[in-house]
């Protein structure tokens, strides 16, 4: 066989393998979605009798809604906190020199690579030490702090892409650093900020490992689902999971689009390690 035929056969094989891996990644989710419409509940094959009952039940479920609202509250607050501190941290890493800078960089990024249990437990000990009652506030502190890592990487990448000349011109023309920040730096970072905010929002809405140790009486949505799973599988969980999946996919895709527009494709090494 010629070398070219060999090469194209190899490519075809690799393509088939890739397809199989994508099937592995997506089949479980497809099954989950499919069975959320199955009248006979979860399990059994093939799924028979299409129904929307599980969704109807879900929308009538007050504790799911309460937990959803709790998650929303935590996520929005976490986005604000993580973006504010992440922006400052990115500016500091980009422009300032201070003792311990490289340690600071590693420390900020640590929650991204450490197992959630470590971050969650250390914050639990901190809460007890500081006399904080476990509640949505501690969950917010945990999410906000852990997600500074994501905000910092995203905004740092955005800053690196920024055109410095505009800021220089602004400062040269007599604007104060404060004015330059509000009128030049921030507007230019707009897309990066939106992208980072979307990602942080999604991650906070889905977070479970850190939340697990910081939760008080009010559950977040993932923790409410977790608690129900311990009582056994119900098709209602399939329908809420389907909705979570859909919303997450939409948010992630918007994030990705904005991100490629603001940072560009070559900076896709998102999970740059500490």
């Amino acid at each position, binding site marked *: 066989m010629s070398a070219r035929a060999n090469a194209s056969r*190899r*490519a075809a094989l690799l*393509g088939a*393998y*890739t397809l199989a*891996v*994508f099937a*592995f*990644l997506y089949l*479980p989710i497809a*099954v*989950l979605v499919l069975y959320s419409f199955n009248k006979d509940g*979860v*399990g*059994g*094959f093939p799924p028979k009798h299409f129904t929307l009952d599980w969704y109807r039940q879900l929308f009538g479920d007050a504790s799911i809604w309460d937990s959803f609202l709790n998650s929303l509250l935590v996520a929005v607050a976490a986005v604000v906190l993580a973006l504010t*501190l992440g922006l*400052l*941290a990115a500016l*500091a890493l980009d*422009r*300032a020199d*201070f003792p311990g800078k490289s340690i*600071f960089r590693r420390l*900020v990024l640590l*929650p991204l*690579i*450490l*197992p959630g*249990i*470590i*971050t969650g437990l*250390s914050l639990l*000990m*901190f809460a007890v030490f500081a006399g904080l009652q476990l509640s949505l506030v501690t969950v917010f502190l945990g999410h906000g702090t852990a997600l*500074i890592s994501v905000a910092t990487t995203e905004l740092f990448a955005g800053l690196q892409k920024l055109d410095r000349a505009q*800021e*220089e011109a602004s*400062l040269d023309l007599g604007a104060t*650093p404060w004015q330059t920040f509000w009128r030049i730096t921030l507007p230019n970072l707009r897309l990066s900020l939106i992208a980072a905010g979307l990602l942080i929002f*999604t*991650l906070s809405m*889905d977070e*479970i*490992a850190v939340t697990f140790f910081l939760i008080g009486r009010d559950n977040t949505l*993932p923790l409410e*689902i*977790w608690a129900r*799973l311990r009582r056994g*599988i119900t098709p209602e969980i399939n329908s809420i*999971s389907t909705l*979570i999946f859909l919303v*997450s996919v939409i948010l*992630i*895709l918007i994030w*990705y689009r904005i991100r490629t527009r603001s940072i560009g494709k070559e900076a*896709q*090494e998102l*999970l740059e*390690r500490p």
Partner: protein
Amino acid sequence: MYSRAYKTIVSLAPLLWVGIFLLLPYALMFAHSFWTVRDGFIVRDWTLQNYAKLFQNPIYAQVLFRSMRIAAGVTLLSLLLGYPVAYYMSFHAGIRKDLLYQLVIVPLWVSYLVRGYAWKTILGSEGVLNGFLQYLHITHAPVSFFLYSPFAVVLMLTHIYTPFVFLPLYASLEHIPRNLIEASHDLGATPRATFFRVVLPLSLPGLLAGATFAFVLTLGDFLAPQLVGGPSSIMIANIVQSLFGTAYDWPLGAAISVLILALTVSLLILAGRLEKRWSFR
């Protein structure tokens, strides 16, 4: 060009926040690991007895090794799944590259719980897989060992961490100058030789980054064993979790956490060193 005041302001707030809400908590965890529990209260007497317990009672080492085996399995499988996909996308996908990339990014960030739960519904004894097998008359009674086994944990976490492994691998493959590969071909190397002597060595930094990710995050996982693993696949983080819950021995739990943390950080440092040595940039 930025004034001293500007630099101080932007550095101070994040430094303070990270100091109080990240560094101090980690330090507290470290401190707890040297304290003890007496009559249901944490006593701040400095002692090494928690660490001594970890070495005396074989159960801890046993569970730690099981966790490491599971983590190694997940890492290996994720690499086996992720590497060819990254290779295909980098070298053969052409205009579909971006679409495929997004198809990997989506499961990377989409809810851990949703994906874990999906496996629970599939693998259960009344689950979809068993229903499917009986439907095809391959089995006649539900197979119970799919769920609640270390196998299920490995499967679920491989599903979760394959995209994590893929990402740095793909990035490192994309960074390989294509003329190096052409040069290798032109000089008469077979495709196999080109792969093993050019592509693979140059992708090692990405491979290492992905492998560390998968290993470290699996090692500290406590949700998968509860969701799909059952008692036979209790992992080290589950022990920590119970020590912080019903067993109420925070100091001992903190000592195990410090152990996990130390393992993680030394792996990260090791990987960082190797990466630097192997990277060609």
